[in-house]
């Protein structure tokens, strides 16, 4: 595992290498090298099984993190390569030619995060949504609760009380107190 990571490191300049488990490593790689790296790993290092491809939205850094997880079924180890791409007009090279199922992931990520994968088959088609007009639904700044409240007629007539506030209003309405609402779930 260590040797492999070192080999990859010299070849593709990995960063932030984290050994999550004995047989699983996470590392960041540059956007330009990742397709080359996974092709190399598939063809020469035995990482034949494409586990998954995922995206996370780091809105505070203004980045998307794309993660490619590859598995080597013989050596039973995984390598996950992270790619940080800009959040503005995100585009990524498609990897659909490497594994047959990759286009599905890319199609979903395009719909959920708005990342473009030029050349990926059927990538423009909707995956799970139909007639969606709002911003891509997995973005951090898309508030699903607000959207649902606005759109789907939640059944009215519900009121709740915060115990601390309620007790203050009942027991000592006029006294100087801290009046912060402290709830774990909004």
């Amino acid at each position, binding site marked *: 595992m260590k040797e492999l990571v070192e080999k990859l490191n010299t070849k593709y300049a990995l960063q932030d290498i*984290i050994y*999550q*488990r004995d*047989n*699983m490593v*996470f590392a960041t790689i540059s956007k330009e090298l990742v397709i080359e790296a996974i092709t190399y790993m598939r063809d020469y290092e035995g990482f*034949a*099984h*494409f*586990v*998954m491809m*995922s*995206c*996370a*939205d*780091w809105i505070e850094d203004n980045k998307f*993190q794309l*993660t490619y*997880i590859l598995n080597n*079924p013989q050596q*039973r180890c*995984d390598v*996950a390569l992270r790619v940080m791409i800009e959040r503005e007009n995100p585009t990524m090279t498609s990897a659909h030619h490497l*594994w*047959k*199922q990759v*286009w*599905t992931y890319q199609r979903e990520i395009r719909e959920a995060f708005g990342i473009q994968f030029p050349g990926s*088959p059927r990538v423009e088609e*909707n*995956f*799970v*949504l*139909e007639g969606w007009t709002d911003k891509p*639904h*997995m973005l*951090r700044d*898309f508030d*699903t*609760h607000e959207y649902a409240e606005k759109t789907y007629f939640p059944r009215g007539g519900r009121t709740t009380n915060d115990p601390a506030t309620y007790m203050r209003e009942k027991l000592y309405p006029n006294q100087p107190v801290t009046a912060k609402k402290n709830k*774990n*779930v909004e």
Partner: protein
Amino acid sequence: MLNNFFGFKPDRSKYPSVNEDGSLNIDLSSHQYTKLWLGPNHPGVTGNMAMELTLNGDEIVEGKTHVGYLHRGFEKLIERRLFVQGFPTSIRMCVAEPDTNEYLIAACTEELSGYDKQIPDMAKWLRMLSLEMARLQGLLRGVPGQAGTYSLGIGVQWGVYLRDLILDRFEELTGARVYHMYIIPGGVRGLLPEGFKARMEDNLKDIDDFIVRIKKLMFDNAIFKKRSIGQGIVTKEMVDKYGVVGTTARASGVKRDVRKDNPYLFYDQLDFDPPTAEEGDIYARTFVRWQELIQTVDLIRQIMAKMPEKGDIRAQMPNVLNWRIPKGETYVRIESGRGEYGMYYVTDGSDKPRRVNLRGPSYTHGVALLEDLLVNTNIADIHALMVSLQTCPPEIER
């Protein structure tokens, strides 16, 4: 022989022709092809899924899957929930075998927060028990269900009855029939009730009997063989190419089982050998699953024999309302009844996850692989093909 004589196999080299970009040249207005939608309101489609088929007679020349009818946005919802709140939510991602989801979210949070070493042994055994029971109930539906797709309904009736018995045991153990919410981050939510093992053993005996009966009904059935042998072949080469996992891969001669390859819980203490086959067709897949059924019954017996009588069921964890997990990411996989089932989990140091992404076997089986296998099959075989690939739409779209 006669089939070929009557010329039922169309010559696909002549039509439809392939365009330069790889798409098929299908002109619907030529009336050579028919467009047919199968689903979502369709009893033959597993779950709630649609297929847009282009037909030439009874044969499919192009099939497109349409998912999203069961999309609930779990991954978004879990981002809004505390770590412990995520677990009742997550299990609904796949209704056929919910326990795997529970285990995954528990395992991910435990691993990232560093509590994975503190899970009590008793809890681990109980987790294994519930996972194997989940596999068993899934197979009890799935194995005869394959014959059900060819309208051999009795097997399904027997199977679902026995599955109900297992669900009764689940109810006793976990407090719910289908959505058990048993494997909680840190442990499990209850010990075995009194007399559980005896009742379970009774049910396992019934299942033993069922295994024999279903063998005679399905696998020694001339027409079942005729329909399933040679259909929907997944070759050895396709396994890696399409990301095929689990019993589907094992039926194609690729022995992959997470329980053996990356043992989790106490699977390394159990004695089992995942069954395989070489053919890769529907019959082989079903037959492998049938052997898996035998093996699962045996595993449950082993677990019940080996598990301790008493023990802690949950590690001492932080207050669930205030639980924060440091920044990190991980991917945890387990072997569900359908194959490798994984979860990619990213935390950012807050009390809620940053990103949760499920990798279910259906995601690859049910979209990319299914679409390619559909080509040149008969409409009558779609349902069988979907069931044999264990397509579970809620897990594709989540």
